[in-house]
């Protein structure tokens, strides 16, 4: 969990993406796109409910004179797929999404009837996404599902050890459960409060809501007990299982995947290299590597798209990933890493600088692979 709000959430990224599609690259909507028009009024969105065929959909929104409602969101369950914010009186805007068949929520916060339904029917045709983009999405989806499966598999024995009160065993199993989560964290963050439930640090949430991995970490390392942790552990397992199910239906776009890589490196800079993430167990370098691996997997998925536009940047990024792994190497011990507490300021400085160099390049990718 990032202590700071994530700068560009996946949902917001989707909006940025469509804004670019709408205004940057072309004035036209995606070919064959269905247009849906909405007005913001005191009641919320008008129409409140509507339907559309599966495939690309352009949402056109106009504020028809309300100060109560300035925003529209299209959601699938808890996940925001697209939104337009800050549409005050007289302003209009648009965004587009490619949606499969199903029921989606139209949410216009502040309206007297703030929720409605968008029914999408039929089958999306092949127009949705070029072959490379489809390949990128398929490759990353497979990585995502592999890691959420592994997360459940590794969390099960960890949770069992906690419930059994076996502190030593739970400590030994903790890191293995953390790795798959840290590889895909940005996607988990797109599901509302699932990420804070699984991964909040003590200061991130109110005391009574502090659960998940780090609550158990605190008990095991700081209090040296698993007492009272059984309900927390059971909830953790239920939450990672929920995540495993949710990612199967997550809507992915290539720029979103690339931006997820940036978010992962942002995580490294903000909380791993500072030792804040694993403040009781000090396995921060394990998370560090998992974040980098997750970023690399996301980058590899979109790399063919990038190489078409900017092969030099793609090569530079590949080299920078190698530099980061090389910088981590001296701290490797067996399957894991030295404790964060063994790192000197000079050590963390060098690691942070390597991440900054990689992240600066990686931040150029989303714009390159769209438009």
């Amino acid at each position, binding site marked *: 969990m990032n202590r700071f709000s994530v700068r560009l959430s996946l949902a917001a990224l989707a909006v940025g993406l469509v804004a*670019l599609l709408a205004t*940057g690259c072309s004035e036209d909507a995606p070919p064959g796109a269905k247009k849906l028009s909405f007005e913001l009024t005191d009641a919320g969105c008008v129409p409140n409910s509507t339907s559309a065929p599966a495939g690309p959909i352009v949402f056109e929104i106009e504020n028809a004179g309300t100060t109560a409602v300035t925003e529209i969101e299209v959601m699938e369950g808890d996940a925001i797929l697209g939104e337009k914010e800050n549409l005050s009186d007289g302003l209009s805007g648009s965004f587009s999404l490619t949606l499969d068949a199903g029921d989606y929520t139209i949410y216009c916060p502040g309206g007297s009837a703030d929720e409605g339904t968008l029914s999408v029917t039929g089958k999306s045709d092949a127009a949705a996404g070029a072959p490379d983009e489809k390949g990128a999405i398929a490759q990353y989806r497979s990585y995502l599902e592999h890691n959420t499966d592994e997360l459940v598999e590794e969390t099960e024995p960890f949770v069992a050890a906690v419930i059994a009160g076996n502190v030593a065993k739970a400590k030994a199993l903790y890191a293995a459960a953390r790795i798959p989560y840290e590889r895909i964290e940005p996607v988990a963050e797109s599901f509302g409060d699932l990420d804070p439930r699984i991964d909040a640090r003590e200061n991130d949430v109110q005391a009574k809501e502090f659960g998940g991995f780090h609550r158990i970490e605190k008990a095991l390392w700081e209090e040296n007990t698993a007492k009272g942790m059984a309900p927390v552990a059971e909830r953790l397992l239920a939450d990672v299982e929920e995540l495993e199910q949710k990612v199967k239906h997550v809507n992915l776009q290539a720029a979103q995947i690339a931006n997820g890589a940036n978010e992962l490196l942002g995580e490294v800079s903000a909380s791993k290299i500072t030792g804040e993430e694993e403040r009781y167990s000090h396995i921060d370098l394990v998370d560090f590597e998992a974040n980098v691996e997750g970023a690399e997997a996301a980058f590899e998925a979109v790399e063919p798209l990038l190489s078409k536009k900017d092969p030099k940047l793609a090569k530079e990024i590949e080299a920078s990933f190698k530099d980061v792994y090389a910088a981590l190497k001296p701290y490797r011990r067996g399957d894991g890493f030295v404790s964060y507490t063994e790192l000197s300021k000079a050590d963390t400085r060098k690691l942070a*600088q390597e991440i900054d160099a*990689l992240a*600066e390049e990686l931040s150029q990718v989303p714009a390159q692979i*769209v438009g």
Partner: protein
Amino acid sequence: MTEITRRRLLAAAGVGAAGVGLGGAAGYLVGSDDAQASDGTGSVPFYGEHQAGIDTPAQDRLHFAAFDLVDPSRAALRELMQEWSVAAAEMTAGQMIGDANGVELAPPEDTGETVGLLPSRLTVTFGFGPSLFERREPGLKGSRPAALAPIPPLPADELNELESGGDICVQACSDDPQVAFHAIRNLARIGRGTVVMRWSQLGFGRTASTSRSQETPRNLMGFKDGTANIKAEDTAAMDRYVWVGNEGPAWMRGGSYVVTRRIRMLLEVWDRSALEDQEQTIGRDKYRGAPLGAQEEFDPLDLEAEKGGKPVIPVDAHVRLASASANDGERILRRGYSFTDGVDQSLGELEAGLFFICFQRDPRKQFVPIQQRLGSNDALNEYIKHVGSALFAVPPGARQGGYVGETLLD
């Protein structure tokens, strides 16, 4: 995509004076009067025979940074200096860096904190440290000027290695602190992967005047500092003491050498010393700035004058030891800034002092012997510690279309 510029936003914001300075800046056709306007509208051309920021009338604020190479290849260094020069030229003209500042999906090229701010006489000055020439790559050993000899250990040094040295330096001076900060921040960002920042120093107030048009400022000890400084209008003195001539390698002609010293002042001790002691330590009247025994600030030092069998200006007074006549006629161009960096955690006292900067033609003949004399005998040593030190060769200015360092790297 809407083009965003600092200028457009300024115009939109209705900044009255913006039209004058920025209009001039856009074409680098800034007359000398505009260039010196310290109300923010002044804009100092980046390209020229010498790098700006040396003979430019000292601006009010400083951000200085030293970098180390992490990608030591010659090609990477050349590309860095090219990109830095272009960005520096844009920033000094009051423009945003780059052209991708409105792409929704990309981080803006310019970080944006100077949007709506005036050029504020920003200058960006680059230099190369001795360590750059000692590396196997980029293979510059043979180009090292003899004058770039490491500064030997000096009396009263208490140097911290992490506040000293560096392969490359960037001095950003401006009348607006945010404009100076923005320059260093953005150059550091451009350099990621090629250089890492080793140390950096903010200066909040100039302690030197480098032009006859400027009042002599006071340092944190409350004394006028730099009264006897070389003034840019004195071109003969600039040529004799500051600009590199035909000596040494050709790539340094028109350049200079900069020495920086982070000088921590023990202000608490200073503040409880009597006025007479303070004046005897410096050798000047605290308020008028006149040399002891004289009436006006710019009166000459009378080093021979005695009163009651004792020299009027004490033998260990700072002005005596720093004077040209005490140093075989040698002088330096001082361009330092006062700094404070919070509280010295080990003492609970203000971490403050002078970030001393001086430019010269050959540090071996100028800064080093002067400081050897000062470090051994200066009465001021009781109140100061030199905690950081660095030396850089400052190459000549870049021509339009060229870059700083071209004479060395091409």
